[in-house]
C-alpha cells in the first residue's frame, strides 16, 4: 500500500505539511526524542510527501506521537502537526484497521466503545452526595466525563479524579447554579477520536447530543480539557445544526472572580502547575488557571522549568503508547516539579492526574520524594469562602468530596 490517496494528499495540504522547512525544531523539542526514542515529526512530514511507500515508518510514527503539540508550538512554518496526526490516524484506521498499541490492554477504549450502545444502562450517579445540588432537567448541564470509571479502573494507584467533578459542582452550587447531571451521559469520545476511531466517536456525539436535548440542556459546562475540546470543537463537526454552548469551568470561575463574586481562604502552600496539553496549547488557557490559583491568599505558585507554551506532556495521551519513554518523560517532569520545591503538583486535567499519580506510585525503584497531585478545582473548592450559613456539609476534609465506589 502506498499512502498517496487523495485523502492523504488533502491532509498534507490542509495541515500545511508542505510548509515544512525541514529545520528540525520540531524534533529538537519532541519529548519522545528527548527521552531517547527515535522520533521525528520532520521526518514523518518528509516521508508522507516524498516517500509515501514507506508504510512501516509512517504507520509507526503516526501512532507513536503523543499529540502534545509542542512541535507545532515551535514550528516556524505553522505546520499543524497534531491535527495532521489526528487526521492520519483516522485515515490509516480506515485502510488498515485500528492499530497502534493500547495501554491497559485496550480496556479503556473498550469501555468507550461499549458506551456507543444505545441500550446501555449506566449507574453513573452514585457518586453524587446529597449536599451536591443537581437537577435532572434544565438549561445548564455539567459534563462529568469518564472520571467515575477512571477511579475504579485505576483504584490501584489511588487516584481520585471524581473529586474534580464533585468539587466542580460544589463551586457551581456556590455560584447558585444547580446543573443538570445526566444519568446516561456517554464518554465524550476524545480518546476514540484521537486513536482514529471516528465512527464510534460520532456515535458517542450523537448519543450525548440527544441526551442533552432530551433534558432541555442549552449550555454544557465541563471541567476536563479533553471533554471541552471534544464537545466544543469536534462535536459540532459531527452534529448538524449544533446549537449548544460549551463552557470551560475555569472560564466561568475566572469571570466570577473578576466580578468579585468569589473569595478564598488562605492556604499556606507552595504549588506548581502542570499545563495540560489540551488546555494550554490546545485551548490557549495558560493564564486562567494561574490567575485562579493566585487568588488563593498565601498560596505560592512556582513554575517548572518548562511551563506554559513549552510545558511538557504528562507522558501519555488517549491511553496509547505508554512505554519506557513515557516513563522517562514522566520521571523528568516530576523531577522538574520537585526541583521547584513545591509540595503539590496542581493540574487541571484528570488524565494528567492519572499519569502523574501512576508514575509517582510505581513500585520501582522504591520510595520517591513525596509530591501531592491535586486538581485545580479541588483547591479552589476547598479554599472558597462560604457565607456562614452556606457552608456545605462535607463528608471528608481536604479536597475530598465523596467518591462513588460503585458505578
Amino acid at each position, binding site marked *: 500500500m502506498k499512502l498517496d490517496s487523495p485523502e492523504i494528499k488533502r491532509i498534507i495540504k490542509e495541515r500545511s505539511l508542505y510548509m515544512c522547512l525541514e529545520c528540525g525544531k520540531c524534533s529538537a523539542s519532541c519529548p519522545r526524542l528527548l527521552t531517547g526514542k527515535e522520533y521525528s515529526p520532520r521526518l514523518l512530514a518528509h516521508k508522507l510527501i516524498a516517500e509515501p511507500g514507506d508504510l512501516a515508518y509512517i504507520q509507526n510514527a503516526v501512532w507513536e506521537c503523543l499529540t502534545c503539540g509542542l512541535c507545532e508550538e515551535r514550528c516556524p512554518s505553522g505546520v499543524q502537526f497534531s491535527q495532521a496526526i489526528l487526521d492520519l490516524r483516522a485515515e490509516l484506521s480506515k485502510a488498515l484497521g485500528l492499530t497502534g498499541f493500547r495501554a491497559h490492554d485496550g480496556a479503556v477504549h473498550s469501555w468507550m466503545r461499549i458506551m456507543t450502545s444505545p441500550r446501555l444502562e449506566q449507574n453513573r450517579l452514585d457518586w453524587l452526595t446529597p449536599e451536591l445540588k443537581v437537577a435532572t432537567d434544565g438549561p445548564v448541564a455539567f459534563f462529568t466525563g469518564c472520571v467515575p470509571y477512571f477511579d475504579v479502573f485505576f483504584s490501584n494507584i489511588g487516584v481520585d479524579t471524581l473529586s474534580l467533578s464533585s468539587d466542580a459542582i460544589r463551586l457551581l452550587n456556590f455560584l447558585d447554579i444547580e446543573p443538570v447531571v445526566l444519568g446516561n451521559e456517554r464518554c465524550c469520545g476524545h480518546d476514540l477520536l484521537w486513536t482514529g476511531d471516528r465512527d464510534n466517536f460520532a456515535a458517542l456525539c450523537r448519543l450525548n447530543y440527544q441526551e442533552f436535548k432530551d433534558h432541555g440542556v442549552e449550555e454544557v459546562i465541563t471541567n476536563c480539557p479533553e471533554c471541552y475540546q471534544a464537545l466544543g470543537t469536534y462535536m459540532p463537526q459531527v452534529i448538524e445544526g449544533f446549537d449548544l454552548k460549551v463552557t470551560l469551568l475555569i472560564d466561568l470561575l475566572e469571570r466570577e472572580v473578576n466580578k468579585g463574586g468569589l473569595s478564598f481562604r488562605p492556604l499556606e502552600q507552595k504549588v506548581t502547575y502542570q499545563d495540560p496539553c489540551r488546555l494550554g496549547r490546545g485551548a490557549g488557557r495558560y493564564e486562567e488557571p494561574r490567575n485562579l490559583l493566585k487568588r488563593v491568599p498565601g498560596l505560592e505558585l512556582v513554575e517548572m522549568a518548562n511551563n506554559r507554551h513549552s510545558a511538557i506532556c504528562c507522558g501519555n495521551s488517549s491511553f496509547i503508547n505508554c512505554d519506557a519513554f513515557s516513563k522517562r518523560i514522566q520521571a523528568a517532569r516530576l523531577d522538574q516539579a520537585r526541583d521547584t520545591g513545591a509540595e503539590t503538583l496542581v493540574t487541571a486535567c484528570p488524565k494528567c492526574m492519572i499519569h502523574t499519580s501512576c508514575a509517582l506510585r510505581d*513500585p520501582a525503584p522504591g520510595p520517591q520524594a513525596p509530591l501531592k497531585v491535586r486538581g485545580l478545582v479541588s483547591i479552589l473548592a476547598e479554599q472558597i469562602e462560604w457565607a456562614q450559613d452556606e457552608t456545605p456539609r462535607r463528608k471528608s476534609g481536604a479536597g475530598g468530596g465523596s467518591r462513588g465506589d460503585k458505578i
Partner: protein
Amino acid sequence: MNQNGSKDPAPGVLVVGSGYGALKAAEDLSHAGIPVIWATRSSQFLDLPEGVEPFEDWPGDLNFQFRPLYLRVTRHPLVTPLTQTRLESLSLEDGSCAAHLRQDPVYVDYDLCTGCSRCMELCPLNHGEHPPLQRSPAFCPSRALLLDKRPVSPCRQACPLGVNAQAYLALTAAGSYDKALAVVRRDNPLPGVCGYICSHPCESACRRGELDEPLAIRDIKRFLFDHEAELGPAALPEPEMGPRGQKVAVVGSGPAGLSAAHFLNQQGFAVTILEAAAQAGGMLRRGINAFRLPRPVLEAEVEALEQSGVEIITGTKVESARHLLDQGFDAVLLTVGTQRDLRLNLPGEELDGVLHCLDFLSAVNLGEGGSVGQRTVVIGGGNSAMDAARTAVRLGARQVTVVAIETEYELPASPREVAEAAEEGVAFQLGYAPVGLSGEGAIAEVSLRRAHWERPEDGPPRIEFDSEDIESIEADTVIVAISQSTDLPGSPLGDEVKLGGGGRLAVNEDLATSLDGVFAAGDAVSGPSTVVQAMAAGRRAAARVHGYLTGEASPWRELDQDPHGVGEHLPISEDLLREPRQRMAQRQPKVRRRDFEAVDLGLTVSQAQAEAERCLQCASCCECLECEAACEQVGAIDHSRQGRALQVRAPAVVWAEAGAPPWQGQAAPERVFPIDPESYSADLMDVLMMGSAAAGLAMAPAAGLRVPAVPAEAPPRPRPATGRIGFFLCACNGSMAPAPALERILDLARPVPGVAHVDSVFSVCHPQGADQIAEAVDRHQLSQIILASCVCCPLNFQCISCNDQRTRARMHLFERLGLDRGMVETVNLRDHLHAGQFSQEQIVQRARAMLRPAFIRMRHPGALRMGDTEIKKRVLVLGGSQVGISAARNLALQGLSVRLVHRAWPSGQELPDSIAARPLDDSLEDNITAVEAAEIEAIRGVLGDFKVKAKLDGRWRTWSADVVCLTDENLIGLSLYAGQTGLKKFYRYDFSFFNTPHSGVYRIMPVTLERVDPWQAGAALAGEVATTAAKAYLLDHQLSPVVDPARCRGCGRCAEICPFEAITLKQNPDGSFTSQVFRHNCVGCGGCVGRCPVSALDIPYFSNQLLEQMVAGVMGSEV
C-alpha cells in the same frame, strides 16, 4: 519404572517409609541429582508413619498442597517409587547397604492406569460396603486405582475345581446372571449338573456359617443354569485355541470324562468321547435319580459339550486303548469309572430279592425296569444308599429301612439327602452291621449286629461289633449300597494296562498309565468320589494330556499352586445382621414320593438375589475379571500379578518408618539416617527439616552416584515444516464420550482446512497411545497436532490440579518420543464434556466450542522458549555458626566448592559480641576455603551468578558464588527486601523453608534454631542447597515472558506481583529501569503479563496478539 518388571533398581539412596519427611528427603535427593529408591508399605506416599496423628493445627487440605511436589518427586526420572513394599532385611556390605525388599503384587499398574474408571463402573462390588476397586486418595496425583485383593475365599478354595463362587455370587447379586454363569463355566463345564447335585464342599467352607448359615451356593448355581435354560439352550464358551490337529480319545462319559473332554477341546484338541452305554453321562445317568438330576439338565449339558466341538460316540465299549492309539488318536484318557457294585460277601447274598445298588439304580434310571418288594432294606449310608432308598419308595415299597453302621452324624450321605429320605418315609436303623441274609430261595430277613467303625491311625478302618446279640429285620428286597469298584480286572482293557489296588487303574504322578500315551482319571483311579472331585480329576488329567502332547505347562492353574491376595479375609462386620439362608420351594414328601419328578423347584429371582447378597465377599476382589476386560487395551489391571523380591544396593538409607526399626534398641547404623516420627508431633516445619537433614546427611556417602543433569530420553524429532495438522481425540478408554459422539467430533475436524490426519487414541497417557500419535506424525508428516484429551496446559508440575495421567502423556510424547512440545496444542475436553450429563448432541456442541479456538490457534503458532542456564557449584556460606559449619562441611563432603566466612557482618553494622567471641573451628576439611572475618556490603546478582562485595583486611574484593547461605542471625537483613517475609516460596508447594525472597540465597531463621539441633539444621540446609547447587543446569521455563525494553516503563509492578522472584529490575545507564526475567525461576504463570499496564511483557507461546486473534476468531465465524 514399570514396577512389575523383575529387574532390581540401580543403586541409589533407599528411602523407607512415607509421609512429609520422606517426601522432602526424596525431593532433596532426587533434585540434587542422586538416584532414590523409595519404598513404602502403604499404597501411597503421604501416608503418615504408623501411629502418627496429624498435627491438629495443620490445614485440612495440607495433602493437596503437597500434591505438585508429590508428583514431581514420584515422576522424577531418578526416583524409583515402590508402594506396598516392605524392607525385609538390611545389612552393611563393603561400605554400602544391601537391602532386601518385598513388594506385594501390584494389581493395577500405576504406570499404565489412565484413571478412566471404567473398571469401577463394571465391578459388581463397587457399590457395596467394601468396594474392591478404589481410587487412591484425591491428593495422590496418580489417582490410579487400588485393588483390594485378599486371599482366595474359602468357598473357592474348598471347591476341587476351584470354581469362583465368590465371583458368581457377586455377579448374581448385581443381576448379571449370564456373566455369573460364564464365571462358573470357566472352571466347570457342567454348571447344571453341579447346580442340582454337587456335594458343595464350598458351602461347608463358607464363612457365613460362623454368623448364621452358609450361603446356598449350589442353589444359586442351579438358579443361574435354570435362568439360562428358560432363555435358550445351554452353551459353553468357544474353544480358546484353534484346532491343533491332535486327537484325543476319552473313554467314558461320566463327570471325569466330560470335564476332561471339555478342557481339552478348549485347548484345540479334537476330542472324541467313547461311551459304552446308549447315552452319555456315565454315573450321572446310571447312578443318579431323575428326581435329583432331571434328565433334561444332563442332556442339555451334554448337548452343549457336543455343540462346542466334542464328539461323543455312544454304544461303543472300548476294549483296547492301544487299538485307539493305532486308530490315530494321539492320546487316550481312560475315565471308565467304577461300574461294579461291591458285595457284602455275606451268606445269602445270592438269594432272590437281594439287589445291588448300581445295578438296581441303573435299571431304573435307564428305563430297563426295576421293582422292589413291600419291605425293602437298603444296606449302606452313602448318597447312593439314599438314592436307592428313595427310589424304592417311589417304586412302591411300603416300608423302606436304611441299615448303616454309622450313627446319624457319621453318615457319609449329605444331611439334606438323609432328611429328605426320612421325610419320604424312609426308616433308619443306624449303628448296625448286616451279618447275614436269609430266606427260602428269596430274601426274607436280614440279620444285624450292633457295630461301629474303628479307624486305627495305622490301618484301614474296620468294623467293630458292639454286641453279640443278633437282631433281624424282615425284608422282601435288600439293596446293597456299599460302594463300587471298577470292572476292569479280567476285562480286555484291564489286561492291557496295569491295575492297582481294588482293581483301580494304576497311574504315575503324571496320571499316565503303563501304556505310553494312555492316561487315566476319575473314580477308576481314585475309587468312588463325588461328581465335582471326578471333574477336577478329569481336568488334572487333561492338563497331563495337554503337557504330553504339547510339552507346554498346564493352561489351568490349580488354586493351590496360585498364591494370591494380600492380608486377611474381610472381617465379618459387627453391624451385619443375621439372616437365614434362602430355601428352595419343595414339593411335599407325600406328593413327591409318588413319582420321579424333581423334588426342589429352584430359587426364585428375588430369592437368588437375596441369597447372593448374603455373601461376605471374603476376598474383597472376587476376581470376576470384569475390570480386566474393561482394561484390556490399557492393560493396567492384571489379577495374576505376583509380588516380587528386590535387592537394592544403597550408599545410604533414609528411614522414615515408625515402629520398630531393624536395629531396634540400638543406635541407627552408620549410613542409616532416620527421620524421627516424633517430629510429627511438633510442627510441619520440623518434619520437613528432618527430611532435609536426612537427605543432606545421605548426600555425602551418595555423592558418587550423582548425575549432573538428567539426560533426555530421546533425541528431538525433526519437525516437518509444512502446514499439516493432525487431530487426535483421546477416547480415555471409552470413558470420554459415547463412541458415536466421538465419531462425530472427529467428523468436525476432518473438513477443517489444513487438517491432514484425524484419529482417535484409546488413551493418550498410555505408552501405546503416545506411540500411535508419534507414528502418525511420522507417517503423515504432521507439522502440528491438536490433542483433545485431559491435558490442559504445557506447564510442568506447577498447578495443584495437575495429575499423573497428564504428566505421563507429556512424558511419553515429549521426553520419550521426542515430539516437539511447540507443535502440540492441548485441549482439555475431558474435564468439560461431562459425558454423563449431556445428550450426544450437546456433547458434540461442547466439543466444538472447545475445539474451535484450538484450530484457530493452529494458524498462529507461538514459539516456546527453550534453553537452560549453566550454573557452577560454588557455595558461599556467610556465618560460622554451628549451622554454617555443619552446612559447609556437608556440602564439602558432597564435593561442592565451599567458601565459609566465620564472622561476617553487613556494612554499617557492628559484629555482635556473641559472634566475635565465638571460637573458630579449625578442623575444617581442606576443600573449604575459610575466611576469618569480612564486612559484607551487598549481595548482588542472581542464582548461579552472585557477586558479593566483601571487605577483608581493609580491602574490598568481590566474591563470585552460585548460591549464598546466610547462617548467622545478623546477616538475615542481607536477604530480605522491605515488606517481604520470604515465605512465598513455601506456598509454591515446595515447602522450602530455607529460601529467601532472593532465589539462590538461603538463610536460617532464628525461630528454626529454637527447636532444631543446629547440626541437623546445617545438614538440612546443605540438603536444600544441593538441590540447586549440585545441578549443572537450570532449565528455563518454556512459557517465560519476554520483555520489550522499549515498552517497559520499569514501574516494577511485574516484579511486585511475581511470587517466584523471576523478575528483577535492571537499572539502565540513564537511571531508568527495565524488567528482567530469570527464566529458570519463572513458572510461566503469566501473572506479570496480566499486571503490566502497557503490555511490555508477553509470552510468545500465548502472546496477547495471539489471544486477540483467537478471540476474534471465536467471536467471528471462523471454523
